[in-house]
């Protein structure tokens, strides 16, 4: 028993010491927030004049996107006609520029031709597009079979991908959906030559000629896109009630291979290119003239590609496109003295607490001192690791939160020692009282800390921004509290209570006890 206690005690001290040394040696310290350390600021400007409303929408979208990518607690605001993004914990301006390279505008454009633009030539379509072009569009409820093609197909194998519309289950045939029918019947302006066609790059570097945008990402209902993975990765997305008309108009064109959306090779229906910030993400073939409610985009996506598309569709498009103008390093907003003041005040506060506790608990107070040091080391190490992984910055609020956590940590000692006192009053010896007391104390501490942990986990999962950062540090300090309590305080107090030193004491915890 004693040996296990010693193992636990020495083990925890060594582990904390080792991680601390590792962190100090590798200069791995917690990232400090914008208010404490500053960061890099990137100014984004819309390419065309935008209303304040649009800028606010873009602000929220950028913020969401940054958080999704794990850049924690960015400070995004609209200033005048620009959007200012302050990123904590980023030191390099180039990194910052690429970090806020958040794509904005989703366009739906008919595919005119692969390779070159001017004259559509159906005879020899260059198979310029990579795997993500071999995609098909079908109602989400139907699972087309056999759309996958060989990894490196010869050009003539492409047509086999297409699924005739009549092979689609009747439950999802367009005729079921009366609301869209009028739109389908609307005469589509047929222009003999495709005007406004542009050559756009695809994600794998080749080019595609696409016609003018006939719709934006707005046709999809936001947040409805889902990753589907039954037969290769794909994306299912719902159409918005008002977006359905736009989508179907375009789909109808492509299905019928009208000149605006011609068939790029014989036997292949027209294709709709989904363009994100002037890069073709995917150019699925249209397998039916109109769609009811939802669209499934399947094909040779890699999982990451499909996820990207889901993200873009879910996040919603920017009303206008924004461009990064410049990056600047930005100084701490709270002033450099704030952190120093917080740390000094925190340390002095901690010192006072320790003095109070030693005065009150005497010898056992020393355990608190040791425990607090171990706890502080553990919190520092964990914070360093976590900010290395997640980019969560420690703001002034976080620092003060940790100072408050000192109180909660000390509480576990207080609960423990008060319990020991109760037992001593009942005439037990310290040796006997300590293990009994710990059992009761552990129950209490565990229950109370689990409540804190639940709070931390839920706030972390469901909220954003600084609330999330708070949750992270609440969780960290609580876990450290539990660990220190079990692996340090318990063995330390139990060993001390068995030691000759304590056995001989007539005053334990500032009270007279029965000496054995």
């Amino acid at each position, binding site marked *: 028993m004693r040996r296990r206690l010693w193992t636990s005690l020495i083990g925890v001290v060594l582990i904390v010491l080792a991680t601390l040394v590792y962190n100090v040696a590798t200069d791995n310290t917690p990232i400090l927030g914008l208010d404490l350390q500053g960061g890099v600021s990137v100014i984004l400007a819309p390419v065309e004049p935008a209303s304040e409303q649009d800028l606010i929408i873009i602000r929220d979208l950028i913020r969401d996107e940054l958080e999704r990518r794990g850049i924690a607690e960015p400070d995004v605001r609209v200033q005048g006609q620009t959007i200012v993004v302050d990123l904590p914990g980023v030191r390099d301006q180039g990194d910052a520029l690429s970090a806020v390279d958040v794509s904005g505008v989703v366009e739906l454009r008919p595919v005119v031709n692969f390779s070159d633009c001017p004259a559509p030539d159906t005879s020899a379509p260059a198979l310029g597009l990579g795997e993500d072009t071999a995609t098909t569009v079908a109602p989400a409820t139907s699972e087309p079979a056999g759309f996958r093609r060989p990894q490196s197909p010869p050009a003539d194998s492409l047509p086999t991908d297409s699924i005739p519309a009549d092979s689609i289950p009747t439950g999802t045939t367009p005729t079921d959906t009366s609301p869209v029918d009028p739109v389908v019947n609307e005469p589509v302006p047929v222009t003999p030559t495709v005007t406004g066609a542009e050559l756009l790059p695809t994600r794998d570097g080749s080019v595609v000629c696409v016609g003018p945008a006939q719709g934006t990402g707005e046709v999809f209902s936001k947040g409805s896109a889902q990753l589907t993975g039954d037969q290769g990765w794909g994306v299912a997305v719902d159409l918005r009630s008002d977006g359905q008309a736009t989508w179907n108009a375009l789909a109808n064109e492509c299905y019928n291979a009208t000149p605006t959306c011609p068939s790029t090779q014989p036997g292949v229906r027209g294709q709709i290119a989904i363009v994100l910030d002037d890069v073709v993400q995917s150019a699925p073939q249209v397998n039916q003239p109109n769609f009811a409610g939802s669209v499934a985009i399947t094909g040779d996506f890699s999982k990451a590609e499909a996820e990207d598309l889901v993200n873009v569709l879910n996040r919603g498009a920017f009303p206008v496109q924004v461009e990064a103008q410049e990056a600047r390093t*930005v*100084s701490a907003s709270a002033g450099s003295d704030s952190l120093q003041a917080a740390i000094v005040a925190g340390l002095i506060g901690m010192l006072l607490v320790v003095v109070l506790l030693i005065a009150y608990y005497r010898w056992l107070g020393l355990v608190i001192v040791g425990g607090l040091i171990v706890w502080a080391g553990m919190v520092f190490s964990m914070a360093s690791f976590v900010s290395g992984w997640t980019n969560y910055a420690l703001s002034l609020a976080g620092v003060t939160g940790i100072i*408050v956590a000192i109180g909660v940590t000390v509480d576990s000692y207080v609960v423990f020692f008060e319990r020991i006192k109760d037992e001593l009053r009942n005439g037990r010896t310290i040796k006997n009282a300590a293990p009994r007391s710990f059992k009761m104390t552990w129950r209490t501490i565990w229950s109370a800390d689990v409540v804190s942990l639940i709070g931390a986990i839920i706030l972390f999962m469901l909220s954003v921004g600084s609330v999330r950062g708070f949750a992270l540090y609440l969780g960290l300090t609580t876990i450290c509290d539990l660990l220190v309590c079990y692996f340090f305080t318990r063995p330390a107090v139990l060993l001390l209570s068995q030691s000759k030193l304590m056995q001989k004491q007539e005053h334990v915890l500032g009270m007279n006890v029965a000496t054995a």
Partner: protein
Amino acid sequence: MTLDNTISSSGLGRLFKGQTAIDFYGHRRIGLYTAVIIVIVTVVSLFTQGLNLGLDFEGGDAWDIPASETFGVAEAEQVLSDNGISTADARIQLRSSETSDVVTVQVEELPREQAAKVTADFADAAGVTSQDVSFSFTSSTWGSEITKKAIRALVVFIIIVSIFISIRFEWRMALAAIAAMVNDVVAAVGVYSVFQFTVTPATVIAFLTILGYSLYDTIVVFDRVEENEGKFAAVRMPYQDVVNISMNQVLMRSLMTSFSSIIPVLSLLILGSGIMGAVALQEFALALLVGMISGVYSSIFIATPLLAWLKRDVGRKTYRDRLVGDDLRAMVMGAGARARMATETAASTDGEGDDGERGLVSTGIGQPADQLLTHPPRPRKKKRR
């Protein structure tokens, strides 16, 4: 045997020795009234003057001033304070790139004339023309989306914590703990509303910290209540007595914990923001201080009396007067369920009212504690070697 278990003659002494016999349940109205007053004051204040939302919530004015060797953050601060604008709520940053440095100053929205004057002052101080100082409005950084998500997270948190407490303890404890927590947060929000302190994202964090702290403190107290409930179940101890006994037993722990939590915050307030002048800490520390005091207070005076009231007639068959005075003291000191008062005099102190602390006249005081117990702990035998 050197047990010094005389009932201390001073209140403080009894406190240290865990010999208090305060009738918390009898004083439940104090807690109730304070809670009601706090809620009323907060609600009235919220409706009449609301909260003073800061830059991050409401947006404001922003200036970009070319920085130079003679004009930096400190100079910008000087201009603001010359214009009577609090620098505590302003955000002043130096933004530097390879080509140029800019001081960005953001403050809460000012009247147009004042803003124009500040622009001119900045230009003067920086030694440039007013045209070189760009003035614009800045939006909030804390979008409504963040608030929405935070509130949703809070609601889920409260539901799940209630379920956890209901499983680990019981639903009445969940209710009482949540009520106490709400009281604490309301108290802290009230301070911000009444004194019109600026609410920043850090303030929101402070409120959340308070929330967590309050729950933590209440759970620790409830754990003892639950333990005693089992202990006294055999004698059908009225719940009010269980609560009173538990409260007296954890009183010292509550006080010690409060001291050790509040000292660092006080240090932050007095040393950090007062002496070292980090104004950013001041209001934050104040919110924490109020919340933590309230957190400890509410565990004792709101959560537990509420719990006792909720359980006032759950599964109890005997209805007798609450234990007070030395009867209570004996129980607090762990005399066990079957204890009787050893001293007849102590047992007949019913006329003394319900106030144990007032019971300095209580006959038990000054007597050896053993006299309170029928079964004093058996003296330890000499250790056999």
